[in-house]
């Protein structure tokens, strides 16, 4: 039981990071109807910016860890959002009224551009950081000596995810911007006729998605202690899978999908073999899609007349 609890914690933390990235996929899909394949790389850029900011802050002599973390978070979100906005502006907006596959191809191209850009600008080496947040709690110690541990960084990852998810759910459900986004999702032409600035709303969607990816990138850096220029690919694929599993276009679905992928991977590795954990995650995706083609929380697409 203790063992199961520990693996549950492992899975939830991993799933939270997937979920944060998955939200970016799902929001863009919901509004523009395209898969932003460059999103995994935005996540990687976020990780790098967090690393660079962290190193700058440490080198100017800042030592208070909470202050550093907050500043790193804000700077990373701000600059990564700028990346998100720029990419939409130069790679997707000119192609918005082109044929359906054009923006997707452009996204794949953008993904290569970002990967190679950071390889050239930051070098091809893995960039490690020493553990910044250490320590944790022993939740329960079983009779057999197995202690369930929850480390501080795991707490931070989960809490940050919950807070951000709540914040953005509120943003979509209650604010003016959220209403515009939902309007654009339903019918862009009608929304623009009613005075919604469609271009701006779509830009903001990319900005929000990028900001969340930046948070995921920073959490990744803190949790695993390293970033490299290639990390966006695998993480992006997993998060995309999570978004599809949860029902692409649905915000809570992305989070649910992320958690499920994280849990499946971890529990499979815990009780069967680590060799086939990815196979397990993707097999479950296939099974779910056979019975629920729109994912767990997705709505079937209604043809508008």
């Amino acid at each position, binding site marked *: 039981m203790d063992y199961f609890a520990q693996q549950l914690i492992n899975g939830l933390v991993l799933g939270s990071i997937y979920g944060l990235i998955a939200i970016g996929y799902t929001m863009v899909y919901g509004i523009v109807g395209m898969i932003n394949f460059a999103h995994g790389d935005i996540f990687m850029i976020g990780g790098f910016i967090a690393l660079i900011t962290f190193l700058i802050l440490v080198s100017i002599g800042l030592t208070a860890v909470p202050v550093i973390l907050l500043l790193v978070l804000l700077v990373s979100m701000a600059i990564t959002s700028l990346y998100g906005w720029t990419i939409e502006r130069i790679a997707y907006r000119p192609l918005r009224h082109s044929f359906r596959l054009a923006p997707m191809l452009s996204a794949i191209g953008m993904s290569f551009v970002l990967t190679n850009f950071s390889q050239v600008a930051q070098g*091809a080496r893995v960039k490690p950081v020493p*553990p910044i947040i250490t320590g944790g709690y022993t939740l329960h110690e079983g009779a057999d000596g197995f202690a369930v541990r929850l480390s501080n960084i795991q707490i931070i990852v989960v809490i940050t995810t919950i807070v951000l998810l709540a914040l953005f759910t509120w943003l979509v459900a209650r604010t003016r911007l959220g209403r515009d986004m939902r309007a654009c999702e339903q019918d862009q032409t009608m929304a623009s006729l009613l005075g919604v600035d469609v271009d701006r709303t779509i830009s903001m969607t990319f900005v929000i998605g990028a900001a969340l990816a930046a948070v995921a990138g920073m959490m*990744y850096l803190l949790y695993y202690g390293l970033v490299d220029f290639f990390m966006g690919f695998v993480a992006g694929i997993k998060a995309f899978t999570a978004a599809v599993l949860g029902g692409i276009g649905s915000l809570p679905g992305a989070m649910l999908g992320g958690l499920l992928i994280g849990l499946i991977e971890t529990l499979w*590795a815990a009780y069967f073999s680590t060799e086939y954990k990815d196979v397990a995650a993707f097999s479950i995706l296939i099974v779910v899609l056979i019975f629920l083609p729109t994912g767990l929380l997705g709505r079937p697409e209604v043809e508008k007349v």
Partner: protein
Amino acid sequence: MKFIKLIGLTAGASIALASVALAQDIPVAVASSMTGSESAFGRQFKNGAELAVADINAAGGLLNKKLALQVGDDACDPKQARSIAEKFASARIPFVAGHYCSSSSIPASEAYADGNVLQISPGSTNPLFTERKLANVLRVCGRDDQQGFVAGEYIAKNYKGKNIAILNDKTTYGKGLADETRKALNKAGVTEKMFESYNKGDKDFNAIVSRLKRDNIDLVYVGGYHQEAGLIVRQMRDQGLKTVLMAGDAINDKEFASITGPAAEGTLFTFGPDPRNKPTAKAIVDRFKAKNIDPEGYTLYTYAAFQVWSQAVAKAGTTDTKKVMDTIKAGEWDTVLGKLAFDAKGDIKAIDYVVYKWDAKGDYAELKQ
């Protein structure tokens, strides 16, 4: 008239080309993982090769020509290694020092064999590299069957009655080393409690770390590269495990300690006796230090690979692969690693692996047994 002019021009051009070819340097190459997760070791190779070539040229070159070094990057990817090897072979490069990852060295060696290129690997330890009866391969490092034997003996001696786990990353090197260590361990009468594999490139090892915790593992042996091993150590300490990690030569770079932080303390690995401490290496080590390079890991092995080849070429008076190879195998060579002699397969005679231990300051030292 125009026609004659053209002929003149062509003739002139070809003479010019020929004279360039005559004055040309001897091209040599170093190939390793210059980018990607194993790039720390690519840098070791490159540092060693650059200084070796500079020293050979400063001493008057080889066969009255200068050496020109080319660098190949395989990113520890077998496909890329093969294509680099084919590129070097078609450029008629007589000598390549490389590669690092065994999964790169092995496919590359076949292309080198076809192109008649002499390959000395400074750091590929998988036995298969020299076991395929290829006439063009040598290595200046040890083999995983020897390395695994030393690791297995050490574990059996010091962890008798304790719980042992063995992990591997499914690569040629990692799986090979894990299998050899397991073999040696079982022979010494110790059975491991867990034998598992993970994917090279994985970042999240929490699930497997919790399994180690459940099974009360005292020592985990990892057949794999430094990034994954570093992450395993880090995640073990995060989950409150005191389990000791032991690995092979692939964690012999300071980058390992920068991934783990102080958690590296106590981590064990096997490697040849530290080449930096050998009296033969003193002068070269000082020259590296003057350039602010720590010649750790395979740096000096790469330097030695160039020394062996260049001395043999000077003795044979040619860069022809077959003649140089016969010369190398017949002789004994003075290198920074000491005297090296090779057996018929291309392995060095007299190999000894020793166990090292990392400390909390991010340094490692030979373990006195």
